[in-house]
């Protein structure tokens, strides 16, 4: 395995990087020909953004020398899945490459086996005792709970204030209505009295009602249906209403 290959900021990443990067679709065809077809990934992992064939050609034109190298690299090692030939991607890979050189921890997303055999300790943290772990877990769980409760308090407070305001408004309306009712009753009753006083005092032609000038009507019995039906027969003749009215 070649370990000392300097990572080039170009098309071909080092094999170490290749080991730990997710499998990416292998671009089919020649770079220079311009036809780029991507093979569907078997692992369904992240699809990096594809650059257009023109970008590739540009890229290729800036570093003409490298292109040859890349082609040779690809022909040399077909079994490795090549990442997409993108400048941004290579920069990222370079950074990660640098980091990984210092300590290759086991937490990398790649499931490939590390080629290094030893682990480097990078923290000075010690294993916490059980009670402290419990407390930490409680703290971690209580923070979102506290946030939720605070939000709940704010909502409830807002609702409380708004309901109090609404009640006060309704109470004001109630006292206003009660006042209007009082005024209305007082005014109407006084007016009634005034009208009657006027009727009594004035020399108008108002006559006191007595049985002599009262007509008493006896209620008539309810008409039978037959008489109504005979009447409706005559009404039916007038189905066509006269237009004159």
């Amino acid at each position, binding site marked *: 395995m070649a370990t000392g290959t300097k990572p080039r900021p170009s098309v071909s990443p080092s094999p170490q990087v290749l080991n730990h990067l997710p499998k990416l679709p292998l671009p089919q065809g020649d770079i220079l020909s311009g036809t780029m077809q991507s093979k569907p990934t078997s692992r369904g992992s992240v699809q990096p953004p594809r650059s257009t064939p023109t970008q590739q050609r540009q890229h290729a034109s800036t570093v003409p020398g490298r292109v040859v190298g890349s082609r040779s690299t690809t022909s040399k090692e077909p079994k490795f899945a090549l990442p997409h030939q993108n400048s941004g991607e290579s920069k990222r890979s370079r950074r990660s490459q640098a980091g990984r050189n210092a300590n290759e921890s086991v937490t990398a997303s790649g499931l490939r086996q590390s080629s290094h055999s030893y682990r480097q*300790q990078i923290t*000075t943290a*010690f294993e916490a005792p059980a009670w402290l772990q419990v407390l930490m877990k409680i703290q971690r769980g209580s923070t979102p709970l506290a946030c939720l409760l605070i939000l709940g308090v704010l909502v409830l407070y807002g609702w409380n204030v708004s309901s*109090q*305001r609404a*009640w*006060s408004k309704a*109470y004001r309306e*109630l*006292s206003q209505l*009660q*006042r209007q009712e*009082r*005024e209305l*009753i*007082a005014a109407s*009753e*006084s007016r*009634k*009295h005034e009208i*009657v006083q006027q009727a*009594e005092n004035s020399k108008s032609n108002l006559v*006191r*009602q*007595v*049985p*002599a000038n*009262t007509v*008493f009507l*006896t209620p008539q019995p309810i008409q039978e249906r037959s008489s109504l039906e005979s009447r409706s027969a005559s009404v039916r003749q007038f189905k066509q209403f006269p237009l004159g009215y």
Partner: protein
Amino acid sequence: MATTTSRGSETTTTATKTRPQSTSLRLLLVWVVLIFGELGLAARLVYLHVVEAPVLLAKARAQQLMPLRPFSARRPIVDRLNNVLAIDESVYTLYVHPYLFNQPAEVVATQLAPIVKRSVSDLTQLFKTAESGIPVAYELSEQVVDQIKGLQLEGLELNQERQRLYPQADLTSNLVGYVNGDHEGQAGLEYSLQQQLEPLARSAKVSFDGQGVLLPDRVPLNLIRADDQKLHLTLDTRLQRAARAALKKQLNHYRALRGTVIVMDVQDGSLLTLVSEPSYDPKRYYQADPELYKNWALSDLYEPGSTFKPINVAIALETGRVKPDNVFYDEGKIAVGGWPIQNNDYAYAGSRGPLSISKILEYSSNVGMVHIMQQVKPAVYYDWLTRLGIGQKVGSDLPFETAGQFKPKAQFTSYPIEPATTAFGQGFSMTPLQMTQLHALLANGGKLVTPHVVQGLFNSAGEATWKPDLPVRQVLAPTTTQAVVSMMGNVVSRGTGKPAQIPGYRLGGKTGTAQKAVGGQYSSARITSFVGIFPLEAPRYVVLSVVDEPKGDDAYGSTVAAPVVKSVIETLITLEGIPPSHPAEVHPQTKKQ
């Protein structure tokens, strides 16, 4: 270097052994100080919350809470048709505190003067009299108060007060009464039903927010719910007005002292009308004669005279000693126990000879009545009179009632003149209300009802929350009373009650003309009355009219009081819609066509 970094933990452990002791002591000291500080705080907390709690709570409440006193009105009084007879208004009194003015006193006076209707110079003088608490205007209505509040002046204080409004003025003041400045009833129903009319005083300590807005947390529910109970009367204001007009006409014509008209429903004793003239305006009660505050229809006694004769006949018939078709001889003038007794019309009618009981009532013969009542033993007679309630109060819900005056039993039974004068309604006294009650006894088949004017306290849903206690008891047999009522019908159709006839209807009645006793002696002053029972076939109402001291030679019950009763019954017919029992008489000219 790599080894040191990788073995950092090992270097730390080796270094602990070399740390000086003072560090741990300092740590301990800090810990102790902090812990004791915490304990001290905890102790203080406990002290404040447990020991000082009541004092602090009281202080907080005193600062935060203010009393809320909503406008609690005295309950309104309404009549049978929901016309308001008495209702509370909210009025304000304006006080001024000149030391709080933020503008010169003249400016304040100029702004207030047009609203309170006083001159600017008056107000300026007034503001100089004291530093605070100067009353400026009383009984300001709520619209005026809105105007004053709109001025946004400092140093003004408006106190809400209650004022009683009587829309019907002097029409019902004898029944409703009035309230004084402290809003306490002094006469009439305002006085006798003070407890039912005045709601419980409601007030609570409530909290307000920073802007003076009322917070609902501490407001109790009973404070919010308005008291919607009203005192319903059995009175009919329309009939009251018509009765008063008819009575006033006769009072003016005969220049009488005073008069009263009472209309009562015979079945339950509810009063539709109780007019007593003269009357007063309850709003200006202080300007009226205090004699008027009591209702003379139930607080003044009078000798009933001939209107009592039907009741005597009923007593005689009930004892069984007298039958309705008995005949008695009317001499016109007799002497009983040395005292002369004669008929009213003896001067020109003389002796009428044998008369039936009905005729005795028709002619209103005193001597005939004496002969009728002589058939009943005086002790039995006296017992019956006591059973009918004579000499006792009627027990109505109006205040200041007087019990009738009646001779003691020993005197009544010893001297034969006593039952003789009682036979034609003199020698004892009662109130006009009691006379109405006794005639209702004849009209409703022998039941002694309690005259009342109050139906009860009703809320807005129509449910009764309080009703007065009104006993009813049977005293006479219905057959007796029916016989007497039919005789009273004859009085109107053939006898002295002819002025009370109404075409198309039949009513029973009795006139009454009694001499008033002044200074222990009978004088020439009279008290005239007429009682009517309507309709004759199935009596529903009894109408009594009493006119005190009508002047003139033609002042008798039939001329003074009977037209009043006729007028009242005519109005009653049209208000209640009672159809005529003899329709042919109503429009005789149309019938001929």
